[in-house]
Each structure stands twice: as structure tokens, then as C-alpha cells.
């Protein structure tokens, strides 16, 4: 009788895509922009390798693999989380959020289906391209084990970035300034995770492992996939377990989210 959430989501996403195709030049331009805009840093990395050779035991192809993975993760999470991203600026301000509360569906489902941006495919394509080029350069062999670990790591990464955006949405119940702060975490996180963790200083490594566990989804699993001995000395069993951290953060994010929604419905707009 009633359509379950899982079957509703593709319809919402489809509607969102149809609305965007009403402005085809804009959509194409934005997608191309996302492809090149997010991909140019790898050119800088290539130039640096061209001039300096290897860096602390890493070669260009390996760094490209790290780079590609994190962009794939973020592109997917970004596409799913637009609703949370614009919660403060669009939905709360116009009262559209109230309309979401008036529908017999979970807020999360509706927010995921809200404006599923086509342009994020640009970043996804760029990430995949860089990833595969890097893999070719280092002669990476895709076995069942490495593919499984790769998918698991991507899932953990998507969970982590999605969690950060849920937290940003939660903060916007209290302040519109949340957007700026969260950008440091999300875009800053992507920037940092593009490079292998061993290049950074102690304090940054600590932050990226224990505070925002990007290392758990974007470094340790990828080191294992590359078959490169970990300069940070993590044990072999850790790599397949680490992506769990992304889901832990996701769980915490949703606890905060429920608290935020409760606050909103108690205080009004």
C-alpha cells in the first residue's frame, strides 16, 4: 500500500534531476567545472614530482590513488547531502523545512532527495580518472580482496563526509554561520586527505586520525590496497577495520541531528 522509503528515494532523486535538466547549459557547465576545478591540484602534485622525484618514499602514482579515492568519496557524499548543506540558507529561511515536517516521511529521506546535484558527477568522474591513472602507473592489481577493501573504504568515507554535512545541517538550527565553519571540515578534510598521512606533522596526523578520522577511511585502507608498507607502522589487521570509524561518526551525527530537530520543533522558527 504505502511506498517504502527505499523506493521513494529514486523518485525524489529523479524529480530533482529532471528539474536540473531544465537548465541544460548550466548543468553541463557546472559539471565540467566540478571536473576541472577539483582536478587541478593533481597537476600541482605531478609538477612537484616531476621536479623533485619521490617524496618520503611515495611515488606520483600512489599519491594519485589517495587523491582519487577521497574525491570519489566526497563526490558521492556531497551529492547525497545537499539537503543538509542548504538547510540553513534555503530550507529554514523560507519555511520549506516546515513543509518537510508536514509530510509523512523521515526528514533524512526527504533531505537526501532534495536537490541531488548532477554536477557532482564531475568530481566523481575526476576522482575515478585520477584513481585509475594512478593505479595504472603503479601497476596495481585489482584482486577480489583489494576491490572489496576499496568499496568498503569508499563506503566509510561517504559515511564520514555525510556525517560532517549532517552536523553542519544540525548546527544551522542554531546559527547560519555554521556553513562557514563546516566548510573547513569538509573541503579542508578533502584537501588534507588527498595526500598520504605520513607527509604531515604529528599534531595534524593526530587530528586526522582521532578527531575527524579521515585517516581511517582514506589513508590506512589505501595503504593496504597499494601494498605499500605503512611508514606509520599500523598493523595489518587495522586497514580492513578502520573504515568503521566513518560509520561511528555517522551514528554520532544522527544523535546530534535528532537533538537539533527537537530543538527546532520546541522553539519554532
Amino acid at each position, binding site marked *: *500500500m*504505502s*511506498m517504502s522509503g527505499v523506493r*521513494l528515494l529514486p*523518485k*525524489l532523486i529523479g*524529480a530533482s534531476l*529532471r*528539474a536540473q535538466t*531544465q537548465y541544460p547549459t548550466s548543468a553541463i557547465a557546472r559539471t565540467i567545472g566540478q571536473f576541472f576545478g577539483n582536478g587541478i591540484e593533481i597537476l600541482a602534485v605531478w609538477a612537484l614530482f616531476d621536479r623533485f622525484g619521490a617524496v618520503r618514499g611515495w611515488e606520483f602514482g600512489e599519491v594519485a590513488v589517495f587523491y582519487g579515492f577521497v574525491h570519489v568519496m566526497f563526490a558521492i557524499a556531497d551529492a547525497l547531502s545537499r539537503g543538509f548543506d542548504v538547510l540553513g540558507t534555503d530550507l529554514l529561511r*523560507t*519555511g520549506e523545512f*516546515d*513543509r518537510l*515536517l*508536514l*509530510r*509523512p*516521511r*523521515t526528514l533524512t529521506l526527504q533531505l537526501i532527495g532534495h536537490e541531488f546535484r548532477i554536477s557532482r558527477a564531475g568530481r566523481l568522474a575526476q576522482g575515478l580518472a585520477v584513481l585509475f591513472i594512478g593505479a595504472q602507473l603503479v601497476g596495481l592489481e585489482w584482486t577480489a580482496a583489494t576491490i572489496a577493501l576499496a568499496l568498503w573504504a569508499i563506503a566509510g568515507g561517504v559515511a564520514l563526509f555525510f556525517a560532517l554535512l549532517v552536523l553542519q545541517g544540525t548546527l544551522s538550527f542554531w546559527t547560519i554561520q555554521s556553513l562557514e565553519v563546516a566548510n573547513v571540515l569538509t573541503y579542508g578534510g578533502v584537501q588534507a586527505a588527498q595526500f598520504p598521512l605520513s607527509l604531515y606533522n604529528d599534531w595534524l596526523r593526530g587530528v586526522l586520525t582521532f578527531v575527524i578520522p579521515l585517516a581511517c577511511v582514506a589513508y590506512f585502507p589505501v595503504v593496504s590496497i597499494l601494498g605499500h608498507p605503512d611508514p606509520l607502522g599500523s598493523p595489518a589487521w587495522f586497514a580492513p577495520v578502520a573504515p568503521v570509524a566513518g560509520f561511528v561518526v555517522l551514528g554520532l551525527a544522527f544523535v546530534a541531528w535528532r537533538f537539533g530537530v527537537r530543538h527546532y*520543533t*520546541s*522553539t*519554532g522558527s
Partner: protein
Amino acid sequence: MPQIIIEHLTKTYRISERDPGFAGTLRGLFRRRYRRVEALRGVSFSLERGELLGLIGPNGAGKSTTIKILSGILRPDSGLVTVDGLVPFEDRRKHVARIGVVFGQRTQLWWDLPVSDGFALLRDIYGVPEQRYRRTLEELVTLLRLEPLLDQPVRQLSLGQRMRAEIVAALLHEPAVLFLDEPTIGLDAPSKLAVREFVLRLNRERGVTVILTTHDMQDIEALAERVIVIGHGRVLADGTFDLLREAVRETHLEVPSIEAVIARFYALHGAAET
């Protein structure tokens, strides 16, 4: 057993305040000051199934707070609220599946998509079975004369057309209760008449309970058998419009206009616009 029961509803808002000027900005960083606004100080009433209620009152008097609580998007501080046995903000999803809400001047439809696409999405969101959906849609579209507009994107419709589409959207899932928040605001005269006529038929022929908030007194005159005036966070009057008129008449010879009745009523009870 009444369909909608409200007892002793209270709600107070805390609005943070800041002194003007530079010094105020600095102080605001260290110490927060709050102003308390008592929007509802004990509102009680009940509605039977199929009633058509007009809710009027000055802005900021508690009208929209009552509607928000009834629809389930706001929690009261204390008091009892049930709609068909459900507590709106506790059983949110079950409750909102049985109500329809129309906000004047705002549309819930998808701006860039054709009207019919938006209707289909709502069918999926509310989980309306296909057969029932087709039947309901056909009836509503015919009654509100929307056939020529179904393929147009919502952004291309005039305000009057959008409001008619909005009403269809709110009724696709055949709700038991319909909330109309300023539905005729900004509409031209023919559109206003169309909306009023439709709501009246909906209530008389289908028995849909309707709660209407409005500042347009002709809406009240055309539709509301029962009127509740909310001012100062309390129910100031609850009865038919004629009773209301009687209460403010100054001599037995005069027949005050609607606006005059309301104005005098507010003045009598000190419920000025804030």
C-alpha cells in the same frame, strides 16, 4: 467525541535581544539577553468532525502558533492536543498523513516541474494507491479547472492558478482535516470566489473538517459558521459570527460592517495589533 481537542495550551518564545550600537554588539558576545513572548496563555477549544472554523486575531496573538501546534510542527510548553486521538507532535508521521495544509503565497509543489509531475510525487510521498489517486485527481482537477495547466511548470502559473493547484496538492491524499493559512491573500476577486466556493463544497459535501486563518473578513463571512478570536494568547470569543456582531453592537439600530465588528471587538478586549 470531538475530532480536535485543545486544552490549556501554553507556549512561550524566548527571543534573544541585543542592544543597538557597537557597545551592544560587544556585550552581545559575552552575555545573552532574552525577551519572553507568551504566545499562548491557555487556549482551549474543541471541534467536531466536519466543522468549518475561522480563526482570527491580530498578528502575534497566537493564531499561527496554534496552527503550528495543531499541524504537529511545534511543541507546546504545556496543555493537551489531540486530533482524531493522535497527539500531533508525538505521532508526527501518522498525524500529518491525515491532514492537509495550504499556506497562502507559498507552494509545496516543485518549482521547475510540471504541475502533474508534482502531483505524482505527492502521490508517492503520501503512498496513495494508484486507482484512488486517479479518481481523486480527476475530481479535484475538474472542480478547480486545472486541466489546461497540468503540463505547465509551476513557475509559469499566476498566483491564482498556483493557489488552485496548491489546494489540489493538499487534498490528493484525502485528509480528514484541512488547514488553510491565509489562502486568499494576494488573489484577484474571481480566484478568491473560486477558492471560497470550493472550500465550502468540500466541507458541506465531503465532511472535511476545515480550519481557516485569515485577515480577510469576507472569507469569514462566506465560510465560517464558527469563529474563534485569539488575542493576548487567549480565546477571546468562540461562537457564530452573528453572536460576535451582537457583542459589539452599540445601538440596536446599527448594522456594523464586518471590518467594524472586528475592529471594535479587538478594541473592546484590548487586543491591538502588536
